[in-house]
């Protein structure tokens, strides 16, 4: 194959048919925007014939993404929602890779754990934990915000939702980090496939142990107890790959996404000092800012569908069986749907009108929980610190699925 490295190509002059936005290095170097701007303008429904993941279509405009999301009969989530295929001999399943009606009953079993009613009760706990994390931070010296705040907070949250042994909580972080972090699955190089399987096997064993405890006292409102009670899910232990898939969905779904939004907000505010000034003057903007941060970061880069029939979209004919990839990072920069989309504005009108949570029946189940964590984080940060100063370049994750920030050197300045 003669695949070009996108980093060596000029996004303005490269022939359209050579554009391949599946290359993880693009996101590692934050160089994707110019390619997507070109695609939205000149080839919004775009076919890439040759990539590490085989041929695929890119959907890059906001409205086209909504159209694909809304038509789950034509655009199926089976067998996988990553651009990559899963290895045949290690195929995990969960409701994110199911179509109705199977999807609906499996989602319903756990939805309650993160429904807004439940979150109201969690709010006090989360706020207290955020406060403790922030109070433990060094002031006036450089440290890594990702490790000390973003990871710590989302991991504590996850341990709370699963009622997972608290001291062992970083194991959850590890499983989340390696879930798809192989070259074959996302272009990452954190682990080999062999390592991934071994560690996910441990994950499964650990949760099977917890499951046994919970099934014996099935009244809890943690995610495992809810799965153990749910009609569509109570037999999951007899289907280990389905159990593993569901666990990975809940672990990854709630972790990388929120973590990277917490980090992304620090970057966005530092790059836009006038917005930071607005925030200091009016912390009441935080709920609106949270939506803007999530749009700006777009922590989930894509979801993939499979065409179940030949279908016309944007003047192109997508064939039955083709991979169709919706690039949320692109939809969230589409000027036809979002005014001045490259600007970060914490008081943006209709800030919730973004595609970072997806749309349709797979729309993010944890969207309110993600928002809640970000809101509480910023409320507590503003009570304590005048400035979370970025003192070096963020290190970005190499992945075509998660737009991640791996390290973020910051220095804190106390409020005066």
């Amino acid at each position, binding site marked *: 194959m003669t695949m070009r490295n996108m980093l060596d190509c000029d996004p303005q002059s490269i022939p359209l048919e050579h554009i391949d936005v599946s290359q993880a290095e693009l996101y590692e170097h934050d160089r994707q925007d110019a390619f997507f701007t070109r695609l939205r303008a000149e080839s919004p429904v775009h076919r890439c014939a040759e990539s590490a993941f085989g041929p695929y279509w890119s959907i890059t405009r906001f409205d086209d993404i*909504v159209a694909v999301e*809304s038509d789950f009969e034509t655009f199926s989530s089976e067998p996988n929602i990553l651009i990559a295929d899963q290895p045949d001999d290690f195929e995990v399943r969960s409701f994110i890779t199911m179509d109705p009606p199977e999807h609906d009953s499996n989602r319903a079993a756990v939805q*309650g754990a993160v429904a807004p009613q439940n979150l109201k009760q969690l709010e006090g706990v989360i706020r207290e934990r955020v406060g403790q994390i922030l109070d433990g931070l060094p002031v006036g010296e450089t440290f890594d915000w990702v490790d000390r705040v973003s990871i710590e907070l989302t991991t504590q949250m996850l341990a709370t939702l699963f009622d997972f042994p608290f001291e062992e909580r970083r194991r959850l972080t590890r499983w989340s980090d390696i879930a798809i972090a192989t070259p074959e699955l996302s272009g990452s190089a954190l682990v080999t496939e062999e390592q991934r399987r071994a560690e996910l096997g441990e994950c499964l064993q650990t949760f099977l142990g917890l499951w046994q405890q919970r099934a014996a006292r099935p009244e809890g409102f943690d995610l495992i107890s809810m799965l153990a009670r749910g009609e569509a899910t109570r037999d999951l232990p007899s289907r280990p790959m389905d159990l593993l898939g569901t666990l990975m969905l809940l672990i990854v779904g709630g972790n990388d996404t929120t973590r990277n939004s917490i980090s992304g907000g620090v970057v966005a505010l530092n790059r836009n000092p006038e917005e930071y000034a607005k925030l200091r003057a009016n912390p009441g903007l935080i709920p609106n800012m949270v939506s803007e941060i999530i749009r700006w970061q777009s922590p989930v880069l894509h979801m993939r569908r499979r065409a179940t029939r030949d279908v016309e979209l944007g003047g192109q004919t997508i064939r039955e069986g083709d991979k169709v990839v919706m690039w949320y990072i692109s939809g969230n920069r589409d000027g036809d749907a979002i005014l001045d989309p490259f600007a970060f504005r914490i008081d943006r009108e*209709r800030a919730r009108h973004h595609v970072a949570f997806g*749309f*349709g*029946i797979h*729309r993010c189940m944890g969207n*309110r929980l993600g928002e809640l964590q970000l809101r509480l984080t910023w409320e507590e940060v503003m009570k304590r610190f005048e400035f979370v100063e970025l003192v070096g370049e963020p290190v970005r994750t190499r992945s075509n699925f998660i737009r991640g920030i791996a390290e973020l050197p910051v220095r804190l300045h106390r409020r005066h």
Partner: protein
Amino acid sequence: MPSVTYITHDGVPYAVEAVSGTNCMQAAIDNGVPGIDADCGGQCSCATCHVIVDPAWSARVGPPGTAENGMLGLTPERTETSRLACQVTLDDGLDGLVLHLPEFQM
């Protein structure tokens, strides 16, 4: 000009004069009724414009369509008379309509 009353979860009524042909989501947003997010802008694909039709009006308003029904399945506060406001188009026959807002939008 059909009029619609939205009653918030705390029981506060908002009466709105709407133009025939607009939908109940748009009428609420245009008139600053709180409690409807409408993240997708009326495309039946976010379920954040959930309303509960007053039982006295549910026969007149009718049941949700297939796609709408699927989206309503995502909201834990769904009831017998739940609809997505963006999928309910107003006309003079609905003059006086009463809609209740859920405590949260999904």
